[in-house]
């Protein structure tokens, strides 16, 4: 029902929607590229700082353009056509100013990096506001547009060739520039982010790379501003990179994933913007709210991607780690049950098996844990019912034999090499779960295949090496 409603919304997409998605994707991908390196340099907040600091740069650049125009150096058309170049120059300069100023403030003022940044970018932003106030009548800057951006409106300006929206054109070009610069200087960016000292000692100026990155970030941010606004652009800069960082351990792959996340956020974001509010708010009694800001929803979507990566990322994901841990714990409980049944069989060869209560008491585990382990063991056909009790099957006995063999070999190994060490059993109780066939054979070789452990118990022989003779206990 809800799905159908969402589909209805999405089915109404037209060329405009496609351009919105394409522009959003281009902007976010362009931002994700420098974002990866900012994140790895642990300077993510630099993006926020630069996005504010560029304001005075933009205003000054526009003023300079007007001054040139007033002197007659630029005619009206030249001014209009070089508007972006002027903006970019102002932004790039301010990006570098912000980086240089915060760095020198950190050194001279003995502030930590965050505090220095806080001082610099708020001052620059305030200066920008002041300048805007001074020239408000002559320059047209819409503060709303600066803060939130209006992706939906910018694509309506289809002044580019073949009706391609200008906003898409400029963001796509920015993406190409970023891609080109980062490909060219890939190894220089990598070494200066990873080990600035080494970079300098092999002749790569880490600070030059840093300023290049700052300039690139500033220009990228200004490009994306118009479409998505100065606040949301920070999400585009950082979130795809952070998501990718959770998913991989390789830099090229991280950059690739961040691009995919960026593009998908644009698609999902616009889908959310057109479909979600109608579906959601009509149920909450506000049917008049039919859509939301696409750039906002792109940020929400990338946030969701990040959440997904943080929860389910293969190595770092919280859920994945919990699951892996739980699986390990369950396996250890199961192996403990096998070991317990095997030892009991050794001690009381005539007993049929052992009851659940007795197993639980011996291992000190809870009813639910025990039930789960027994159930799984039975499905694996490693244990079976013997009246009210449980006993090992032939298959189970083989596993148990390996486990107990590991345990006792480990005890022998410890006793031989660390004679003063107590707590043999406790150590072996932990280690037995992690000894594989290779290690077990190696232990046996090193100890000359002993037959008894330090406590005098017989070390069961290797199931593989045994003949099929004495398995009648299980049958």
């Amino acid at each position, binding site marked *: 029902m809800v799905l159908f409603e969402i589909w209805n919304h999405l089915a109404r997409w037209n060329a405009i929607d496609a351009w919105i998605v394409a522009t959003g994707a281009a902007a976010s991908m362009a931002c994700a590229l420098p974002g990866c390196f900012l994140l790895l340099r642990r300077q993510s907040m630099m993006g926020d700082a630069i996005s504010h600091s560029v304001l005075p740069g933009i205003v000054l650049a526009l003023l300079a353009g007007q001054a040139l125009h007033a002197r007659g150096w630029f005619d009206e058309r030249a001014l209009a056509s070089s508007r972006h170049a002027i903006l970019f120059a102002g932004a790039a300069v301010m990006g570098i100013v912000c980086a240089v100023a915060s760095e020198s403030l950190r050194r001279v003022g003995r502030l930590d990096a965050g505090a220095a940044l806080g001082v610099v970018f708020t001052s620059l932003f305030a200066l920008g506001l002041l300048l805007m106030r001074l020239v408000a009548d002559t320059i047209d800057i819409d503060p709303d547009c600066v803060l939130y951006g209006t992706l939906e409106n910018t694509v309506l300006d289809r002044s580019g060739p073949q009706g391609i929206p200008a906003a898409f054109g400029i963001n796509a070009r920015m993406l190409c520039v970023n891609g080109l610069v980062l490909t060219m200087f890939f*190894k220089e960016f990598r070494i200066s982010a990873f080990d600035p*000292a080494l970079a300098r000692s092999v002749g790569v100026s880490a600070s030059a790379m840093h300023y290049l990155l700052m300039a690139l970030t500033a220009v990228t941010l200004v490009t994306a501003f118009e479409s998505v606004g100065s606040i949301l652009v920070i999400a585009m800069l950082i979130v795809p990179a952070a998501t990718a960082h959770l998913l991989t351990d390789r830099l090229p792959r991280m950059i690739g994933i961040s691009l995919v996340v960026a593009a998908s956020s644009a698609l999902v974001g616009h889908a959310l913007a057109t479909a979600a509010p109608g579906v959601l708010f009509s149920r909450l009694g506000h049917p008049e709210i039919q859509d939301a800001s696409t750039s906002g929803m792109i940020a929400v979507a990338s946030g969701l991607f990040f959440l997904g990566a943080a929860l389910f990322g293969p190595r770092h994901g919280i859920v994945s780690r919990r699951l892996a841990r739980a699986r390990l714990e369950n396996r250890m409980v199961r192996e403990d049950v096998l070991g317990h049944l095997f030892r009991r069989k050794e001690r009381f060869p005539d007993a049929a098996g052992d009851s659940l209560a007795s197993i639980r008491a011996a291992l000190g585990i809870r009813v639910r844990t025990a039930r789960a382990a027994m159930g799984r063991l039975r499905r694996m056909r490693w244990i079976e019912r013997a009246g009210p009790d449980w006993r090992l099957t032939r298959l189970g006995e083989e596993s148990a034999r390996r486990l107990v063999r590991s345990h006792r070999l480990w005890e022998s190994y410890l006793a031989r090499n660390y004679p003063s060490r107590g707590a043999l059993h406790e150590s072996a109780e932990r280690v037995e779960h992690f000894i594989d066939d290779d290690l077990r054979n190696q232990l046996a070789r090193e100890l000359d295949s002993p037959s008894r452990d330090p406590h005098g118990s017989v070390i069961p022989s290797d199931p593989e090496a045994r003949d099929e003779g004495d398995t009648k206990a299980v049958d």
Partner: protein
Amino acid sequence: MRASNGAAARTGPDDGRSEPSPLSIRDLTVAYHLKPVIWDIDYEAPSGRLIAIVGPNGAGKSTMLAACLDLIPRTTGEVRIFGRPFRSQRGRVGYVPQRESVDWDFPVSALDVVAMGLYHRIGWCRPVTRRYRREALAALERVGMAEFASRQIRQLSGGQQQRVFLARALAQDADLYLMDEPFAGVDAATELVIVDLLRDLRSSGKTVLVVHHDLQTVEEYFDEVVLLNMRLVAAGPVEQVFTPQNLRKTYGGRLALLDRVGNRFTFGPGE
């Protein structure tokens, strides 16, 4: 910031060698925030030797290396590598920084890190081609780490991480190596690998300066020793210089005069 001027006596090395020394330091003073960290160092490293730099914490051992590599500004003095400024000799110097100096969560493999040692030779804007990757792998092999080439560096033990750093320095194929505590916090196996490697380097004519903490192994591992405590206490062959008197001078409290002068600079001259 100029805060030198012969407060301590010069221990001038004798000049007049035919071949320039791998590392010659003259009048080197480095100050952080007006407080001198190392003071008036004069030192000339002999060629083809393993040299330990020894001194208490805060003696300025790492600072001395960093100043030699232009990593931090020198307040006064000059450093020459094979008779010329470091700037023109980058390719001949291999640096092994302290292990804590980098972010081990960085998404690079052991091989990537070793390949960084080759960047100077690869040159700007050129990719790391297969040929260089092979060289990096060969360097990893020399420290017994070839099987870990594709591991992300966080997934290596401390000793293995240190070996990756060494492999990187090897890949640089330098003539002078500066190593900042390569033995810090490594396991016994790695320590042996490092010692073997140092001897290898020496027998191929390289000069190696190592910041070292373990006084017990100085005599076994090194030919020469530099005793440093803000100022150069003594330098020379281990059997001549590594004496109880010199060690007491190095470790037995700061030198009183120097400390007083140093403190004045903390508050600024004239107070």
